[in-house]
């Protein structure tokens, strides 16, 4: 798969719009799911996807194969841009500034019901593996990866030492990696 990914990237660098479409069709959904999970706002998550693809089309050289897999790089960028927005929104609220959306959130707890059936095997297994992590590792990973908390913030929130926070994150990702040794994108 990495070979195919690199081929797509090479074609995008050459301005091949079909390769760009191929990339979108292959990865946009995973990128969007990630961004939506972080932001819980469909329009903002769509904007992140638009931003990332625009950035890639304008500056394809910002990626290089030495940086690892193309798909991993895309997901990390998507995650970091989503966290940027999440933090920016949080800062505004922390400063007591009004935000029509956040101040008047609808109360909904229902989940999007259509997706489970469409999960591919890899993602399904990843989610199972994540659920099987010890709760303390899962909680730290969620705060760190999906909420953008830094180690200090997590240690204060959960009353843990910095070292414990770091080791729980590291152990969590290692367990996920090991459980997926046969599964790659």
């Amino acid at each position, binding site marked *: 798969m990495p070979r195919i990914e690199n081929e797509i990237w090479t074609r995008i660098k050459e301005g091949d719009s079909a390769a760009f479409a191929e990339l979108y069709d292959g990865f946009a959904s995973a990128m969007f799911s*990630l961004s939506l999970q972080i932001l819980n706002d469909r329009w903002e998550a769509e904007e992140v996807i638009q931003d990332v693809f625009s950035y890639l089309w304008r500056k394809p050289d910002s990626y290089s194969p030495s940086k690892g897999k193309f798909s991993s*790089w895309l997901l990390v960028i998507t995650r970091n841009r989503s966290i940027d927005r999440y933090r920016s929104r949080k800062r505004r609220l922390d400063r007591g500034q009004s935000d029509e959306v956040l101040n008047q959130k609808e109360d909904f707890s229902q989940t999007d019901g259509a997706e489970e059936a469409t999960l591919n095997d890899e993602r399904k297994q990843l989610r199972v593996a994540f659920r099987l992590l010890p709760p303390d590792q899962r909680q730290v990973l969620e705060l760190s990866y999906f909420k953008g908390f830094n180690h200090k913030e997590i240690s204060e929130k959960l009353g843990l030492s910095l070292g414990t926070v770091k080791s729980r994150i590291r152990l969590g990702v290692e367990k996920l990696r090991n459980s997926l040794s046969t599964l790659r994108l």
Partner: protein
Amino acid sequence: MDNLKQTALDYTLGVLPKEDSLLFEALLEHDDEAKTSLVTAQEDCANLSLIAEPASLGNEVRSRVMEYTKPRINLDPILESREIETLRENFSAFSHRYQGGGGSVDLNDLGSIALRDDIRRNYESLIELFPLVAGDSHAARGDFTLLHKFLRKQSSYSETIERNLSHDLIGENPASRSVLRSALATMPSLSFFSDRLSEDDPTLSDTRRLFYLCRDQLKIMRASFRDIDPARLEDDEKLRLHGAGLLQTKWWGAEHAYFSSSGKVRCGNFFDGPVTERCVEFAEYDANVYCLANLLSPRSSDGEFHLELLKDTVPGCTLALATAKMDLTNHQNLEAILSGSSKMKKGDSLDQHLWTLIEDSMTRGHQCSNLGELRERRAYGCTRIENYTYLWFAWPAIANAQDGADASTPKPLQ
């Protein structure tokens, strides 16, 4: 090696202190173990990413994204024209930039109590509508029940516009201009999409469009009537850079409507960076861009128009440029409207108000009350080159501003 792995993971998560990030980046230049650790950390993070609840993207997003690959319109004819050359020669930066809010009046400045009440009711209705079309709403998840219920229980927003405009509005009067800005910049499009959404086959893309329009309209109203919502206005008046990206994301590949006529927006030459310094300034800038779009969109001969935002082509300012392919008759009609000539057709007076609103804003942005002088300097204008009509306005740029984003997460790997 364990330390290196931890550093790579922290770097990927964006939680490594800046100095340590720089050291790690230096290490990456020559250390294979560091590179391997980074690749592993990225893959670990990618694994975590795939845990997210799957959600589907609509085709409309795909079509917006694919717009990036389309060739950009060639703006050389207008940028090398005598008009823009004149702007270049005459534009000079200000020591104190205008930061918006100058077009604001009190609701009490409106003579008619009925008009005052109408405006307040409209604002309150939009405040109620806003969460129903937000990105975390039921409608954004494809469940339109609540949105339908809200839209169907009230009359169309087009009736609000009609009622607002039925009052005796004198164009020269600041209070009348605030009413016109509130009724004509965003509302025609807002009423178009809310009407369409209240029908039986609502779409996510219309919901998204209505979200942006509603947000913009609320800000335009607060910037127009300072006492309509003082608490939120206080927030709007705080210094906070607003980037061109905000305009890009909402206009890029969008459908734009002016009353019953709708057209496709194409963009391509948006710069990266801030445009305004406060929300109230952005609301004014935004209203100007809507006015350009409203003037151009219904007259386009192929149903499309281009919106471009350029910096550095005229040093010291940002240039909002709208262009469309237009037949000569429509162009002449537009010129008649902009010059207020007697050749205007019946019904063109609303469009003339759109231009007046831009002119009004130009006097504030360029700190010059002499419209004749601003026209001479080509601070704003209209011209035709070959089959294209171009409308533009220049806005003083923010000096020394590098970034339009209010964000601080380090961006490793980019």
